[in-house]
């Protein structure tokens, strides 16, 4: 079984469009499990219109809670806190839940034992069924911490399902950026499909996501999206990828039918526009990674 993750560095380059298309194309030839680990902006479900099967709580991280009856407003907690999460008051201090990192440093300094750590209800994760295979996805509550942990959890659950089902491919739709949730999404992947765009910002961010994948020793395949917006930039990206031996696996043109298809909750590959054709070619190029070691 292979595990592929779709990443981009820059947001909005087309990760989810590509994920839905590859899910559609892969489902014709192999057994597939899907995971959407962009847990604070999970969009794959909007394209695949899945049937929800199960919902699970995600409890993670802790929150300091000050008992106002025992607080003597000495200020030790605020002094200990490095995250500016403790708000002074005349009679009692209190904690800003959005700034609290759950480190408990305040509890060790409180002379009256007024501070307790409480487990946070941080989100939900779901299993669903799509036309192309089971989907594992999640929703991190607004402002949530620990997105990396939720990414890891969803991916592990999806992986167990893929092993149970004897699937050929676990396809993971990843988050933007290069930080904690991206690192969590990359771990264990056999291939990172990097969707970049032929823009000044896309080219700049490509370098950092390729460096991140290389740092964690995950092989990459690059898809250049929106190539007709700036053909010179598209060529510059190709030259850059060639120089660092990051293989190109597709060139995807701008295509309005993509947005229209997605708005109907359909992958763009069911249409016959230029983007659909290009994605069919990209799949032919990527398919060989399924059998190779």
């Amino acid at each position, binding site marked *: 079984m292979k595990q592929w993750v779709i990443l981009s560095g820059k947001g909005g380059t087309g990760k989810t469009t590509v994920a839905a298309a590859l899910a559609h194309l892969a489902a014709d030839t192999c057994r597939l499990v899907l995971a959407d680990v962009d847990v604070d902006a999970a969009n794959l479900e909007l394209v695949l219109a899945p049937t929800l099967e199960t919902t699970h709580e995600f409890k993670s991280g802790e929150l300091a809670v000050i008992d106002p009856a025992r607080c003597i407003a000495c200020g030790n907690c605020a002094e200990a806190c490095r995250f500016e999460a403790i708000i002074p008051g005349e009679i009692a201090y209190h904690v800003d839940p959005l700034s609290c990192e759950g480190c408990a*440093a305040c509890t060790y300094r409180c002379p009256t034992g007024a501070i307790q750590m409480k487990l946070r209800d941080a989100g939900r994760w779901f299993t669903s069924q799509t036309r192309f295979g089971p989907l594992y996805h999640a929703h*991190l509550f607004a402002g949530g911490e620990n997105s990396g942990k939720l990414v890891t959890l969803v991916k592990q659950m999806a992986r167990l399902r893929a092993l149970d089902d004897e699937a050929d491919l676990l396809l993971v739709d990843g988050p933007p950026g*290069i930080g904690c949730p991206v690192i969590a999404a990359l771990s264990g992947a056999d291939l990172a499909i990097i969707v970049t765009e032929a823009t000044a910002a896309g080219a700049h961010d490509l370098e950092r996501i390729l460096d991140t994948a290389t740092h964690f020793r995950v092989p990459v395949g690059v898809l250049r999206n929106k190539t007709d917006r700036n053909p010179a930039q598209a060529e510059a990206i190709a030259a850059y990828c060639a120089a660092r031996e990051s293989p190109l696996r597709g060139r995807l043109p701008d295509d309005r039918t993509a947005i229209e298809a997605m708005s109907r909750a359909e992958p763009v590959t069911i249409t016959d526009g230029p983007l659909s054709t290009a994605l069919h070619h990209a799949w032919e190029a990527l398919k060989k990674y399924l059998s190779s070691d």
Partner: protein
Amino acid sequence: MIIAVASGKGGTGKTTVAVSLALSLADLSPIYLDCDVEEPNAALFLHPELTERREAGQMIPAVDLSRCTACGHCAEVCRYHAIAVVGQQVLIFPELCHGCGSCTYNCPAQALHEVFEPLGTLERGRVLPWDRGLPAHSSSEEITFAQGTLNVGAAMATPIIRQLKQWVIAPEGTDLPVILDAPPGTACPVVETLHGADLALMVTEPTPFGLHDLRQAVEVARDQLGLPVAVIINRDGVGTADVDTYCTKEGLPIVLRIPLERAIAEGIAQGRTLVEIHPEYRARFRQLFEALP
């Protein structure tokens, strides 16, 4: 006034809006902070002269082996499993550490001290739009510019964002307009950016993805942080009217619409700003700024 430009979904045009807003206010000497430290892109459009540079990071524990009794108390107090005591050895995992200082404080043998662990860099300088050939009304216009950059392979973006803001914005605040270019999503790096802002300017697109992620971003900014929210619709004309309906229902003012237009997409792909592509946007951004609540 501190304005955070955020979005939920990536690639909706946060940087496009933020840089053009800054250029439109350049006679007021605004401050621009690129808080998307995983993929900072504003410098590609504003071409700042960066004159100061410093490391950003956090304090992590280091062990003095001559004092350590391997009692294991440090590992017990750490909420992040960033310290393990195995036999007589103390193992520290810097990538899990949040720098809260609890281990050092609680060590009964005073065997721990803190050392600086770099996570990224901060840079600051200025943008002189006139000299750079950017739209400007006079050569005296100037933007103070600063950005943070997360090191490749480092997970934690929030300390860099926090330190960037502390470095440039005085603790007592400022009378100058401040523009914060936020990262995508709704997790902790976004909360860190929005913290202390006076208003969130949400950039969205009229697609199911844009709407889904806008809802979550509004939940963080308005419902959790209590910030006023105004909306800019980018790529107006694609997709559906659902974003409009949502904004009306929630009482969120739509302060600007940027149409889906080939010339804009191509210009931005080449690294040009909206006010260069269509100079009339300077007056529109100015008007928008003056009408903000």
